[in-house]
């Protein structure tokens, strides 16, 4: 069950500070421009490798930390069907984390190294998971809005230039689209329910709307990595383009079930064929990125606790595997 430890291997073909061969760079850029997939054994610029490890591990961490707000309602799911669906959904997220860590490991960074970077605060995860799940409606809102936003971000990644990442995304997108539908279905049910349920649903939309818009990242003019990532085909659409697309798709969905999007500036713009919407509170976004989200401490505490309390189990599995391997060798 434990992956190969890659941490001791010579992971970087290029040593920092040593100039990379311009011919190799040119060949690489040409392949990417021609929409070819780059595979683990292919030569790649060190900066490309680093950007990918950052993005993929951040993505994997988001899946894992994202299990916590939803896991918060597994024991309290309101009926057996909802409980089974939620268990399956959170299990899917764990699976996504697993594929993504494995895909990132092909770039020479081990899962343990990535986990340690998360726990030390060096690696980031999606800001959205630093908001709390207060009522059952939050489970609906997460599926509908958060997974909905994730799909917008991820569908283009199925054509991202790094092969293992692109292939992981194909499977992940299929599951996310199911998650989005089940979340919307929860909201639909609540919005058509008792007054207390309607209130729960509207309150969840009020709290999750703006953080969902933040999931697309800072505005294009303040996104330092976008240009390079677009050129390398790691990213295929800008943050603002994806955010607009999300708003345009989601607003009619809210209207269809009688919920109100909490944005006084929201208005259909006939000329643009798109919604105009209010300014995201970027000060809040940057604060949450820095670790000041309402439940950031709880999330990190939970991950740290699981990691620390699981150490003896992982160690036992490792020692046991060694004992069995030695016994097998002795018997041969």
């Amino acid at each position, binding site marked *: *069950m*434990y992956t190969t430890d890659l941490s001791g291997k010579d992971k970087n073909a290029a040593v920092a500070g040593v100039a990379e061969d311009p011919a190799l760079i040119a060949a690489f850029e040409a392949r990417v421009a021609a929409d070819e997939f780059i595979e683990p054994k292919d030569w790649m610029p060190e900066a490309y490798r680093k950007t990918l490890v950052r993005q993929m591990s951040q993505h994997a961490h988001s899946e*894992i930390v994202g*299990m*916590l707000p939803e*896991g918060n309602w*597994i*024991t*309290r*799911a*309101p*009926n*057996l*069907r*909802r*409980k*089974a669906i939620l*268990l*399956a959904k*959170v*299990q899917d997220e*764990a*699976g996504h*984390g*697993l594929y993504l*860590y494995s895909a990132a490991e092909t770039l020479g960074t081990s899962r343990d190294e990535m986990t340690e970077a998360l726990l030390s605060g060096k690696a980031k995860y999606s800001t959205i998971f630093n908001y709390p799940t207060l009522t*059952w409606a939050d489970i609906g809102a997460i599926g509908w809005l958060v997974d909905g936003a994730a799909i917008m971000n991820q569908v283009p990644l199925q054509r991202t230039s790094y092969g293992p990442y692109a292939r992981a995304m194909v499977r992940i997108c299929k599951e996310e689209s199911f998650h989005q539908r089940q979340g919307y279905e929860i909201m639909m*049910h609540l919005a058509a*329910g*008792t007054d*207390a*349920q309607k209130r729960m649903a509207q309150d969840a939309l009020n709290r999750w709307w703006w953080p969902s818009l933040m999931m697309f990242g800072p505005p294009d003019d303040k996104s330092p990595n976008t240009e390079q990532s677009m050129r390398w085909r790691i990213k295929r659409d800008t943050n603002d383009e994806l955010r607009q697309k999300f708003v345009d798709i989601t607003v009619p969905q809210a209207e269809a079930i009688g919920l109100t999007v909490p944005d006084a500036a929201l208005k259909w713009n006939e000329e643009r064929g798109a919604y105009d919407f209010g300014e995201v509170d970027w000060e809040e976004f940057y604060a949450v990125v820095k670790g000041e989200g309402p439940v950031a401490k709880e999330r990190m505490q*939970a991950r740290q*606790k*699981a990691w620390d*309390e*699981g*150490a*003896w*189990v*992982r*160690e*036992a*599995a490792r*020692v*046991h595997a060694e*004992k069995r391997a030695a016994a097998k060798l002795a018997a041969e």
Partner: protein
Amino acid sequence: MDALATYALRLGDDSLILGQRLGEWCGHAPALEVDLSLTNVALDQVGQATHFLGLAGAIENAGRDADALAFRRDVMDFTNCLLVEQPNGDFAQTIARQFLFSHYQALLFEQMARVKDERFAAIAAKALKEVSYHATLASDWVVRLGDGTEESKARMVAGLDWMWRFADELFVMDDVDAAAIAAGAGVDKSALRAEWDARIDAVLADATLARPASRRPVLGGRAGHHSEHLGHLLSDMQFLQRAYPDATW
């Protein structure tokens, strides 16, 4: 509720409460693979609970479906065995519970898959595939932890020690069991004991662990007399249905 409905209810309650306990691990397990496997077992148990509680409600024929039975009964009407409601404790304690219970469930469903009553036989046949995997998974962990490090061994011993007093209850027969057997739905659980002992002992030997000493069994779950833990589990599980009795979800 008549004996046959009660029989289905007991089976459903065992699965429901164990599934609920395992669900508590989600997001907190020692490794991602373990998280996935525990959630998988939880999901199987919730599925079995849905089938058996649905069957109990259908036999009772008083308008209660699986959800009404799961979410609208209090402690003394729950009929699960005491083993499944035990707290997760550390990972070794969770594995000890799973190990003892899954081997019992596998033996039970092997027999139940062959009973005359097709409703019980069908659920058991489907569940048998699941619980056989659970038994293998738990056994593998008992061996890894028992024959791992000093610490893991000590924890595995402690986990088994916690759970062992609840094992005998699994095999106790009463009037409900007798009526279910007479109706062509039940299994003679007392007859499963020898094979259960053999399977448990074989795994413990492989794990370099001694079989825990026999002790006075703690009983009462089938009659609604539970440990202190179940009430807390129910207050968590049933919260929404209790707080919003007129809502559907």
